[in-house]
């Protein structure tokens, strides 16, 4: 039950064009189709680009350092099962899959990761750029 319900309630919220609580500057969304590694590294929050299956295409330096996972060990791994297995639930991975299928994903929520063997409160913004059909997880310490 609950994972589907959690996913649904999150998706219902994603109808808003700019989700409440986002920390991502508006101008970044116009750049996502061509966002370079340098652009991503200049952000003061985590930037993770995922393919439609959830495999990491690109991760920026902030996120790599936050999670203590070198970029080389991050990329080409499946984010939800290999990098951050605590996200392999209906709220996180389920919302991602449903958003990819619907070509519509734009949602913020608070979450608690374990970084450096310690729980860390973060805010998550998951977004699918409908034009470039690229998927993004933005992460900032709360």
């Amino acid at each position, binding site marked *: 039950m*609950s994972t*589907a319900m959690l996913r649904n*309630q999150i998706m219902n919220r994603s109808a808003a064009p700019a989700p409440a609580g986002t920390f991502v500057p508006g101008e970044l969304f116009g750049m996502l189709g061509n966002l370079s590694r340098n652009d991503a590294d200049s952000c003061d929050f985590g930037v993770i680009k995922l393919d439609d299956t959830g495999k990491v295409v690109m991760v920026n330096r902030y996120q790599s350092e936050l999670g203590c996972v070198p970029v080389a060990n991050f990329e080409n791994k499946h984010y939800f099962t290999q990098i951050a297995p*605590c996200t392999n639930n209906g*709220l996180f991975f389920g919302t991602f899959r449903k958003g990819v299928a619907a070509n519509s994903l734009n949602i913020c929520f608070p979450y608690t990761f374990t970084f450096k063997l310690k*729980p860390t*409160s973060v805010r998550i913004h998951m977004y699918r750029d409908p034009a470039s059909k690229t998927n993004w997880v933005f992460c900032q310490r*709360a």
Partner: protein
Amino acid sequence: MTASHAEPPALQAPGAPWRPRLYKALRGKAAPLMIFEDRIIPAASVWTGARVWTSCLRDLGVGAGDRVVLALEPSPAMLMAFVACLWEGATVAMAPAGADVDALAEQLDARAVIARNGRWSITPDHDGGPQAPDQLRAAVHAPTPEARLLMRTSGTTGTGRWVALSDQNVLSVVDAHSSALGPRGGTVLSVLPWHHAFGLVIDLLPALFSGASVVRDDAGGRDADRVVELCARWGVTSLATVPLTAERLLDVRGGGRLLGTLLGGVVGGAPVTARLAAALRGTNLRVGYGLTEAAPGVCVGNRGEFTPGFIGRPLRCEARADGEGVLHVRGENVCLGYWNENGLELAEAGRWLRTGDIVEPAGPGGADAGWRFLGRADDSFKLDNGRFVEASRLEQAILAAVPWAGEAALRTPEGRTLEVVLVGDDNLSRADHAAVRVALGGLGGRLKSVRRLPATAAPRTGKGALDRRRLAA
């Protein structure tokens, strides 16, 4: 064999019945989720946080049987710290956030305090991790490893006491009541305080161990509209609550429908009124009855089995009424003892616990029919001529004589005359006065007054029972 399949040696440690359960429920699990207003935390992060707290306790020298006052609001930090205390075999005294923890530490001779205030407290940081104090309090009494929890009785009907519960007390109730929570893997709305036995042992722990996600209502169920909204938003399938919250739900849009669509849950902690019983009959909810001294589970009803005053049947324990109708309970749920000024006072194992609640069989089937709550033995009183008045029995007679009244309270202001308060929405008539006088039998001549209170104006305890002290004020 991978690490995830191996059971670490620590799980085999004697005296640690919590460890396999916590390990299985939390370690490395992306679900269930614990959902708070501003935080969502998966089981895996509760686990890693608990390991950090465990390290902190060990570094501070807090070990098995050391008394630890835990006085945090329901939060990720509270969960992590609680799991760590259970893992280490500490004796955890549950207190509300904001309590005078310095005084509690003295009263309970605690070695450590986990709170956001206080002199010796380990305080949670922004992410819920521990920040250790410069030094801990030096305890005078020996550690109490046989006591896992110290929980204060509500004191609704008298002075509150600190009840000592063993692992066996708590886990027997957790196991017995897990089936009442609804389908495994569901979503539980948590409205009860976690420092009370009902909220902790009947609601939170079975949810954790059954893999249910937990949505915490910061308002503690006091805002019925918010309860309805949270249930809709998160797809809640189960709710444990007191009658007062359930009654409030009946008064808001969507509340009654919500109660009818939940897949499981318990309504307990106070008598169920006729109105609420009618609304809950046929639902998937169960009536529950217990007291802190019984960890706190004693009786539950079948799904949807609600009649006024019905408290269910004993669940994995024995119950019997004595000659005065007072219910006594015996079983693994009956508490280890009490904490008093001399330390831990162990009670006789295998004893019958006097609940102080007056009951009668709920039907002709004897114990199989379950029990019906009539009142508190504490509500009885003596008159100036030495006559003992069993208030609850006379109140039942009055209710039978005045059918529109949902509740009745009988008291004596000065030991000579009698006052009766009827709760209901009809107007009081001369016939009602006469009926009350007749119902009082030989005491009818002492009747001084009969008052009526509309149901909405009746003073209530936090659980929904008629508040007799305020009624008398």
